[in-house]
């Protein structure tokens, strides 16, 4: 008998939900507020990159490929940096491992495209994504330059 009452109680609960306010966010029209450490598509600061290749090596799906050349200051400079978002799982390991924080994650996640080539993102796209992200979040664009300067100073001290 208590089982039957339990069934009726359950039915009452679901019926009680009908007039309540719905919690659905009308997504494409209304964007949710993403948390600061949301693991979305990467942004890249090419000036910070020292072409150590650690991101490419730690990547579990091998979706990162990069190349660099030695400049006149005898330092390595980034030339190409590509992430294949067909297989990237946004695991954040490349960000964790990067010694200069040249690669970080943003809150971008809408990657739908009409062909496969279009989701193969290069250095320029990733840099631009970082700029857009900074604009959205109200971060200053100079923060990148400051970081580069700071980095150079640290190297000079060492």
């Amino acid at each position: 008998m208590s089982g039957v009452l339990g069934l009726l109680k359950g039915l009452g609960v679901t019926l009680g939900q009908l007039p309540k306010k719905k919690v659905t966010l009308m997504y494409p029209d209304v964007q949710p507020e993403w948390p600061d450490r949301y693991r979305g598509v990467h942004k890249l600061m090419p000036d910070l990159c020292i072409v150590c290749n650690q991101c490419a090596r730690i990547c579990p799906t091998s979706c990162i490929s990069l190349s660099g050349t030695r400049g006149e200051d005898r330092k390595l400079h980034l030339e190409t940096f590509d992430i294949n978002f067909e297989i990237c799982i946004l695991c954040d390991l490349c960000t964790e491992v990067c010694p200069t924080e040249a690669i970080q994650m943003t809150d971008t996640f809408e990657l739908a495209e009409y062909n496969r080539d279009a989701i193969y993102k290069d250095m320029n796209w990733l840099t631009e994504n970082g700029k857009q992200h900074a604009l959205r979040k109200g971060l200053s664009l100079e923060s990148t330059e400051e970081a580069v300067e700071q980095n150079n100073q640290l190297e000079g001290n060492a």
Partner: protein
Amino acid sequence: MWNNVLHWVDQPFTSATYLGMLLGGVLTLAITLGAVTYTIYGERKIIGWMQGRVGPNRVGPFGLMQSIADILKLLIKEDIVPAKADKALFMIAPIITYVPAFAVLAVIPYTFHHYFTARLNIGVLYYIALSSISIIGIVLGGWASNNKYAIIGGLRSAAQMISYEIPLALSMLGVVLLSGSLDITRIIEVQQQNGLWNVFPQILGFIVFLIAATAELARAPFDLPEAESELVSGYFTEYSGFRFAFYMLSEYVYLIAMAGLAAALFLGGWTGPFGLGWGWFWYAIKSFLFIFLMFWLRATMPRARVDQLMGFAWKYLIPLAILNLLISAVEKLYWLKG
């Protein structure tokens, strides 16, 4: 001429009555398709509301075109037959399931006038007999797919539907006993004469009917034949495109037919309160209440376990249905002498 076309049920067979039958069939099919489309839409909306969501809202105003878009997608999809499937059986199984589902609509008396339904004097028997044929289509589909999930789903479906058909038929038998007729129209007329819907003298039968009907329609909490979490999607795992659409269609047509049957047998069919007119309107409201109950149950109940399912039908529902039959006999003797 038009009298013959519209009232073909009572007329001898001529070309005019044949035209009436044909028109009736086509019209019923069109109305059924529309009703199924919006039953699916209604189900998604109501379950969405019960879960704190808004349901379909993108295609057309209030998402009203959502089901139409879904059906269109299914119809233009490629017709895939798995390489190791039994081709002939795989292709005809959905049709075997759908044809009886559509045929049982012939005896559901939506209005008193029977413009496009048959006034069959063995309506209840016809419904039970034909709805059993669909099980063959389901088992065949599961077997012909050559897939373990499909065969388990198909066999579960057969076991469940055959078991629950017995309490379902026994619960209808009480109503038949009270009315003294298998003709669904006559059953409604008797309720009209007595001024009492069968749900009151047959309350036990009605409860058994509701539970057995839920199981017979393979809807939650008795949706074991297509239990997503265990069997992918049961007997139609391998189906896609319009053959899948036919399975879905027959499921929902049965829902509508069962709602019509519940309204006719227990809720007084087209009779409304205070003798108000518009038979089809009252019929629609009563059918909708039954359909709403099915959606409500689906939003509330978890799925029953396989080993509890058969025991519930044989140990509890069938004895209850037989007890109800006894009560009906006593009622017929001393109360509703009719």
